[in-house]
């Protein structure tokens, strides 16, 4: 240790001492592992009980009360709250209300997506534990090298996650997430455009129009140049 703090050598020594202590604990470490597996099992049971098996449809899943599906029965109330869709009456207020609904939908979509991804990781972890247990039974046990353990985890996790990513539920949740995010961003963008117009600032839409015009002009110029190059030069004999 120096006055400036621990050096790399100090950290290495501490790390080695901690490692030795952990391994000298031997059986106790094994017990801790078993306890964590039991905890995982209990957690999984709780999740299944309250959250549903894997479709996220349980009554305790926030996605169920936040999603637009939950608002279906309240459509009349929502319309009443927004008021009549007149051209020049309460437009900003209605937009703000719709913004809130879109924000809620985005939150619900993100929650549903996170649930599915979390479930996939939990399944991967479960399969990984089973794989480790199978090794124990086969006599390879806890002496497996870290490389072997890591390779087992990578293989199992990627396979499990690939399977999850291909499922209808995952693809639908991902699309819902993208759609809700785009809707919210478009709403915010439209509001900013109105502010920019009010202040006389150039808007994103104007710049996009400009780029489109330049692109079309470039093509036209190139085409004209090529056609001109193909025509015989009247100056030449």
């Amino acid at each position, binding site marked *: 240790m120096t006055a400036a703090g621990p050096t790399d050598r100090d950290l*290495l020594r501490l790390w080695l001492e901690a*490692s030795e202590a952990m391994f000298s604990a031997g059986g106790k470490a094994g017990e801790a592992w078993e306890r964590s597996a039991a905890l995982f099992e209990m957690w999984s049971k709780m999740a299944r009980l309250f959250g549903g098996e894997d479709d996220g449809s349980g009554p305790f899943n926030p996605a169920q009360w936040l999603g637009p599906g939950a608002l279906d029965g309240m459509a009349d109330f929502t319309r009443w709250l927004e008021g009549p869709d007149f051209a020049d009456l309460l437009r900003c207020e209605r937009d703000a209300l719709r913004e809130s609904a879109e924000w809620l939908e985005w939150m619900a979509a993100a929650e549903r997506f996170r649930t599915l991804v979390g479930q996939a990781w939990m399944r991967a972890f479960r399969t990984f534990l089973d794989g480790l247990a199978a090794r124990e039974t086969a006599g390879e046990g806890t*002496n497996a*090298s870290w490389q072997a353990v890591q390779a087992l985890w*990578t293989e199992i996790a990627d396979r499990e996650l690939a399977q999850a990513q291909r499922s209808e539920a995952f*693809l639908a949740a991902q699309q819902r997430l993208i759609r809700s995010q785009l809707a919210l961003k478009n709403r915010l963008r439209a509001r900013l455009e109105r502010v920019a117009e009010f202040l006389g600032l150039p808007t994103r839409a104007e710049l996009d129009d400009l*780029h489109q015009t330049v692109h079309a002009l470039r*093509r036209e110029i190139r085409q004209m140049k090529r056609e001109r190059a193909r025509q015989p030069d009247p100056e030449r004999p």
Partner: protein
Amino acid sequence: MPEQDPRAPLRDWVDLTRRMAVLSGQFSQSDLRAVAIATTPKTKIAEWGKITLSRYCPVVESPSLGPLLIVHGLIGRQTVTDLQPDRSLVRRLIEAGVDLYVIDWGNPSRADRCRDFTDYADIALSDALDAIAEVSGARRAALFGICQGGVFGLCHAALYPERLSGLALAVTPVDFHADTQDPEPTHGFLNVWARGLPAELIDGLVDDVGNLSGRLTGAVFETLTPARTFAKYTADLFEIADDREALQMFLRMEKWLADRPDHPGAAAKQWLGDLYRENRLVRGTFALDGERVDLGRIACPVLTVIGRDDHIVPPPCARAVKAYLRNAPYREVEVPTGHIGVFVSRKAQQIVPPAVVSWLQGVA
């Protein structure tokens, strides 16, 4: 039951700790910005806005093969073909006497969001081939298209059958729905994902930022194999901690991966919508500026390089090109690697450059 050495886990742990310490030391001395890739000397011969065309400096007296133009797609960059001197397709080709050119698409911004396949596969390639003809004196050139760059090449060869002397396709998807023929479950998720996206969602995703951002495509690639990505920065690194050369290679790959340009919006909509989603290239309904791309019109020799373990472009998607060629001699090479391994793996260095050289020798 085999006898277990009670001290083995401790030894393992100590070894892992030592590797971590070594890595920490190596990285404290490394600067990713100073890592050099694509160092083979070349000269810029033409420029159109952000797009540049360069010619590699020959290393033999008079190059007898080619000209050959390397065309990468808009996802990633062509520097992958010249990652480091001993793993460089570019170097192997110029050493074999190939007159070699490369096109760089630059860094498209939102101002380029209207650029579509016509701008790349028709206009830019026409301009590049004209410039090569002027510099080399050769009437025609061959094209080496990588991934999406191969699709640009296919479109060009179909629209102008007389213009190319040969077309090599590396890890190029042609039948975007043929992933269903690949039994490996970790292959082809991009195909499943894009096929499932409604057209208006693809348009919305692209219009949101104007382009398909490089950061987004990078994130999508990482999520294809998330545990593998994690292992790359942990177990794989510990494994190569004592191998200075392997560490340098790792840093070069990181440098290449970090350089992900944005994909122009209009072309991205065609790539995801017309090709990935609707599979128009093989259905014969893909069109550039109103002109239909008919793969059966391709008249030059075609070489396809396939990565056997390619999870991004599943082998059946690339191999499918053969079924759509009516007038073109066809050759195929399979490499026992993944998508990028076709260019950077040690095994591929023994297979791909000789295959391209041998094919070029038969190209008029």
